[in-house]
């Protein structure tokens, strides 16, 4: 069975890699199989991890009077059912209610978190090193942190310049002329340096994935061919 698994995995890997040459029936087979299996798996997962425990079980317990608090789930279930209003052209407009709730709820949850993590935390991270330039500080665990080294001071200054200039690049209602143009050009240079390093870092990760797949093909799959031959002869 394990041998069969190795052969199926190797066959599908080669089918997908055949895309590097051009679109072909083998790639199309693997693509459709992948999409089909993932949709099927997703549906089963939604039923078992979503519908049954979150909707059906509390609802059933409520109607059989095991736990009447389950009657509350009727409200979200009713809103969810409005998605099926699409099936009736006269009632399609009803779908706007669950959509409005979802977008409103999602934005309400996301915006404060984005504000805290992307603005307040980042601003604090930019400012904090300047408080450590000339004096010792105490860490959360009680350890004494020595003042910054000259290298760290240069890093902190560069970070502030980078943040201020990049922020200037993202001003949309101001014409980028004169000093603003200069600052935004420095900002875009900082962005590109950041993107360049991220690109190199990720490509290294992708090469590691390729090596892993090659390792599978060369050592697991080709080794399995040897196993088959040795068992036959």
């Amino acid at each position: 069975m394990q041998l069969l698994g190795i052969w199926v995995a190797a066959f599908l890997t080669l089918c997908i890699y055949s895309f590097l040459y051009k679109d072909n029936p083998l790639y199309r087979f693997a693509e459709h199989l992948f999409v089909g299996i993932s949709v099927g798996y997703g549906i089963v997962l939604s039923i078992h991890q979503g519908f049954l425990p979150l909707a059906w079980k509390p609802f059933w317990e409520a109607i059989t009077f095991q736990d009447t608090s389950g009657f509350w789930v009727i409200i979200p279930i009713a809103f969810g059912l409005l998605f099926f209003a699409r099936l009736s052209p006269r009632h399609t407009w009803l779908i706007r209610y669950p959509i409005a709730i979802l977008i409103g709820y999602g934005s309400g949850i996301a915006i404060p978190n984005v504000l805290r993590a992307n603005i307040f935390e980042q601003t604090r991270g930019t400012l904090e090193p300047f408080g450590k330039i000339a004096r010792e500080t105490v860490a959360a665990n009680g350890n004494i942190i020595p003042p910054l080294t000259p290298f760290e001071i240069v890093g902190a200054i560069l970070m502030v310049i980078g943040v201020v200039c990049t922020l200037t690049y993202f001003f949309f209602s101001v014409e980028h002329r004169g000093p603003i143009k200069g600052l935004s050009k420095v900002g875009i240079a900082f962005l590109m340096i950041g993107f360049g390093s991220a690109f190199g870092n990720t490509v290294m990760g992708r090469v590691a994935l390729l090596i892993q797949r090659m390792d599978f093909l060369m050592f697991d799959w080709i080794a399995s061919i040897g196993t088959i031959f040795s068992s036959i002869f």
Partner: protein
Amino acid sequence: MTHYKICLWIAVCTTLFLWTSLGYTQGPTAPSNVVAKDTPNDDGTSITITWDVPADGSGIVGYNILSSIDEADFTQIGEQLSLEDVIDTKTNICNYQDTTVSRLNAFTYIIQAVTESGDTIQSQQTESVRPKAQIFHTGKIPLFLAMLLFSAAIVGNIYYVRSGREVFVRRIPGLEAVDEAIGRATEMGRSILYVLGLGGVSNVATIASMTILGQVARRTADYETPLRVPCNDPIVLNVVREMVKTSYLDEGRPDAYSEDNIFFLTESQFAYAAGVDGMMLREKPAAIFLQGTFYAESLILAETGNSIGAIQIAGTDSEAQLPFFIAACDYTLIGEELYAASAYLSKEPMLLGSLRGQDWGKLFIFGLIIVGVILELSGINWITTLLQNVR
């Protein structure tokens, strides 16, 4: 006199000996000041117990937490805790958060100190506490005030623009190419592929992407260019269908709208990438929009689009994927340019006002950084303390 001195010496030495012996033989003392309180700012699922830090040399190496539900027998919660687990170095107090509680019961606690030799000594039991859920998280007040401030800036600017005043919006090259891309697809008689990425309907980048899609759909309705949108989320699919349909209706071309062109592919990341790649190769769209949240599939999509010679306009706020779009696409909207795109394309007063309000917010942060650096260098760190306390 000599006899008196000898007696005095004997008395002093005896006292010293007894005092020292007592010091060495002193066992661990019971945990003192043990207090159990409902944890503030939570949903009523935890109780916080605090007690004094043990004295140096007390021989205490850890603690057991015993709890009783509704005056029943005491049972130990979890494993024995080490001193490092419970001592808060900032406040110099021991604390433990019991997250096994329920709002329906009252809980009483005993702290059991454990010595090196394994002996235990118990504190007195605490008062009975019933956990409560709080409606408002008081720790989020600074965040709430900041939200109000930003919201006020945006609403004020929306009214400013609605009053008929002009708002300048700087040139965004990626968005100026939108018309060029749609025109090219129309001239070549090929379709436009719009990929919204993998974000859900509550994702900010997906919402921004859907707004851009609405504007793109207006133009494709005018030019009768097929617009294909493979979705990876069933809810996004429904929202997108509504938006595109509305755009076609607004342009007076409901007949040109085809619901089949907006379809669900799969929720799986790489299966979605494989499916979209296959579509690119078979349908050869003339223009590809990659707008929204993307992960590791970004380069796979952008490279395939590049290989078929389509004009590609990408935009995402996923920092890790931007380098790939910049490398493989013709135009890329970097981060917030994606959010600005809808205002830029539609020129609607509400969106333009919102864009101007966001710029005010950025100006505020700009000022905060400059002032913060000066204050930090002067040894005043209240800005960083305030930012740290925003939860």
